[in-house]
């Protein structure tokens, strides 16, 4: 198999979903889902996932002579949780940066919501519906949780800076609307008690939650999470996993995440893409990926 073979994947099933898979593959998947009984939650969720929201085709990215990503293709379907995994230096974060427009690949095409991506500022990616969190928390440390999350609403602000500065009439009404969205997120993430605490004073696990809140405040269609559980203890991981599932199921947000905790990845995601040295070595459901000899080699080393 070449490194960019796409495996047939279950989430293509479903009558309402507009499948982009070839007819046979789709039929196979339906059969597979039926064979599995189709009762588990993952299958239920798979049926809800629909058309491709973002596709990455033959993307290569290099910095000078260093190839960070070479010839990687995969797609993300609407409503799914898609994990990108791989050993250190595999190019996962670079991939995320390519997706949200921070880097522009030298080769290859990125299509988001049916539109080919041109070179652009991340700002436009954000306003077109992609938001993200960072591997190292990137919040405004001196600002409160509430202000950080309100900052996430900046793109949705209609009134200009003058109105906002005057804080008068329509600008106040607008702020109240935004505040309501943010307050609902604060309630959802259970961070009422730190609403007014400067973020720099918070423990790491809570900062990550605030960052997630800020990303959600943008009401994204595609949410990119770069190691959302790095450095967390078991309880915090459980909380975060619960939030991710709820965001996916009840807000219907498509999620792409990078994570090192394999237990979390395998439990949360619908499909997993595995990178190694900038190349894709596997792509499929968690079970398929787990059984893939190349993945096992990449993680455990090859015996010679």
């Amino acid at each position, binding site marked *: 198999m070449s490194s960019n073979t796409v495996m047939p994947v279950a989430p293509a099933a479903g009558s309402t979903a507009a499948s982009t898979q070839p007819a046979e593959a789709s039929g196979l998947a339906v059969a597979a889902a039926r064979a599995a009984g189709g009762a588990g939650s993952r299958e239920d969720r798979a049926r809800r996932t629909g058309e491709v929201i973002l596709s990455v085709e033959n993307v290569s990215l290099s910095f000078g002579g260093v190839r960070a990503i070479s010839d990687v293709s995969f797609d993300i379907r609407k409503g799914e949780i898609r994990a990108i995994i791989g050993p250190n230096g595999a190019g996962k974060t670079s991939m995320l940066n390519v997706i949200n427009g921070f880097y522009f690949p030298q080769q290859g095409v990125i299509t988001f919501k049916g539109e080919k991506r041109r070179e652009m500022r991340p700002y436009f990616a954000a306003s077109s519906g992609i938001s993200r969190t960072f591997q190292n928390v990137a919040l405004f440390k001196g600002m409160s949780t509430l202000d950080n999350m309100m900052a996430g609403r900046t793109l949705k602000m209609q009134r200009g800076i003058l109105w906002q500065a005057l804080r008068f009439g329509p600008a106040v009404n607008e702020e109240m609307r935004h505040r309501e969205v943010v307050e609902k997120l604060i309630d959802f993430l259970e961070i*009422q*008690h730190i609403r007014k605490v400067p973020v720099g004073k918070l423990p790491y696990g809570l900062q990550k939650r605030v960052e997630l809140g800020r990303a959600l405040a943008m009401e994204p269609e595609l949410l990119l999470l770069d190691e959302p559980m790095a450095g967390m203890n078991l309880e915090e991981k459980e909380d975060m996993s619960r939030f991710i599932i709820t965001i996916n199921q009840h807000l219907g947000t498509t999620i792409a995440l990078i994570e090192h905790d394999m237990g979390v990845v395998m439990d949360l995601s619908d499909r997993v893409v595995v990178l190694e040295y900038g190349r894709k070595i596997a792509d499929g459901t968690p079970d398929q990926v787990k059984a893939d000899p190349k993945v096992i080699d990449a993680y455990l080393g090859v015996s010679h």
Partner: protein
Amino acid sequence: MNAGQPQANPDTVPKLLVRNAQVFATRSAFREKTLGIWQTWTWSEVLEEVRALALGLQALGLGKGDTVAIIGDNRPHLYWTFTAAQSLGAIPVPLYQDSVADEMAYVLDHAEVRFAVVEDQEQTDKLLSIADRLPRLARIVYHDPRGLEDYDPDRLTSIEALQKTGRAKLAADPGAAAAWMAGVEAGKGADVSVMLYTSGTTGRPKGVMLTHDNVVISGRNANIFDRFTPEDTMIAYLPMAWVGDHIFSYGQAFAGGLTVCCPESPETAIDDRREIGPSYFFAPPRVFETMLTQIMVRMEDAGAIKKGMFHYFLKVARRAGENVLDGKPVGLVDRMLYGLGDLLVYAPLRNRIGFSNLRVAYTAGEAIGPELFSFFRSLGINLKQLYGQTEASVFITLQPDGEVFPETVGKPGPDVQIRIEEGTGEVLFKSPGVFHKYFKNDEATAATKTAEGWVRTGDAGFIDAKGHLRIIDRAKDVGRLNSGALFAPKYVENRLKFYPEVKEAVVFGNGRDFATAFINIDLVSVGNWAERNNVIYASYQELAANPQVKDMILKRVEEMNRSLAGEPLVSGSQVTRFLILHKELDADDGELTRTQKVRRGFIADRYGALITALYDGSRQAHISVEVTYEDGRKGKIEGDVDIVDVPTFPSTAATLKEAAE
């Protein structure tokens, strides 16, 4: 609000609500912080909410005599569920929201609960996990729908949906409101209004049945005692299953039209308190302790000027504060300094902890350290103690304004009579709050309630010269020395533990010639002292064996003995010999309960050799005990322990000797 003085005294809580909706119609009744904003319901709005909820519950099949479990944090909707159930003649049974499912199963089964009204998914999950053991439980009603979207709708209903049903019924049937009202009117004061399960340190929890008379009259009396009016506000943050919250935030609030504020979440309670600025506040001693620690820790981080100012005015407060609060004479200079201190330190501090509008604060539940108590009082916070229990609808004794002594729990409340039983010293009371009976446990009822209506508290105490009640110990723990003098181990242990250097104390003496004590030093406090005084130590054991530490503890015990000598009844309990244990008492070794209470019997067995040494006059004893490390390994700690003699003092208070006989 003179226009609407209530004509008659309603005798049930739903009737109180109907009255409040007329008399205090537009006054705020409940507040809850949601989405960061305080939402307010007036009394007339509450009536509407309760009626809709009641009709919804009725449609679900709730009727007279049924029991409804209520589980969750303090939420207006859950308080309204009490009234809604009561208006139908049903009996609400609040459960502690942090109990594990197994503990709940017993209470739910024992109380024969048919419906459970819960706050959220967490509680729902717990109930569903034990549902197969509860065949009577027909339906779970929840308040917060989050996470419950995918649950079986045949078993779950939301409060919102119930209220919708209720409102639809009211709209469709013009007689519905009147029928509900007739149900409310039919309620009597003697009806059982609520069932509260006591947490039960021994054996299974017991369901204490309180009548409407109990709750309403106790609430009303307490309002009279501290002159509460509808202007008063409180914050409800203690478990609803606890009798205190039920009487304060429900009985008193409904009886007096007070405003009850529910925090956004338990974590935000402190900030919410600051925003609300309650005028009436209750907290167990440990809450005040945490508050004090936080204040002190934060002051350590303050700049030199602020710190200096803080400590200077704290000294002034210690000198004059309590007298100012009690309206006693204070010298002109001190009064002026205190006024200045109030401006610069005390008022900002009170604001910081949310006590700016505070008129009355109570603490109860366990002994409060006199220094802690005085600290808050000297800042102008009217902190008082009360003594009560579930069986009394809380109030037995309260400290009246201006008559606050840290060592007493106050005078009998309005309409309360107390009596000290001859011989055992047990406190008995009779009051309008005396519970109806224990649910399905007549044996326990008979053991607690005498034929004449006196209730045994299980506590031993005495009435002092000022007419105040002083509790010394659990009656069953009180023993006698060979001299015949009363021996109250817990009382002495608490006195010792008030010293910051003493972490734990175990006192022996029942059936002996004199009292002796094991002491655990407090590693934080003594360790801090060691650091400042260049005393080098590597472990608890080493520090405990330090002669300077021994002298320090000796001074404390002597100090306590001197003060015990001034107290009748317990002057015989002065500690004659003590030793500092070579290891910390630990729940892992079975020496403490999980709630950090001393297991006296177990310790007496385990350290038998030391007790012998305490009484046979030896200067030193060798001890070796097995310990369990955190990872489960076992090991041995052994060492030689010095035994210290302490001077005792002749009793200076023989006045109340007859009470001890």
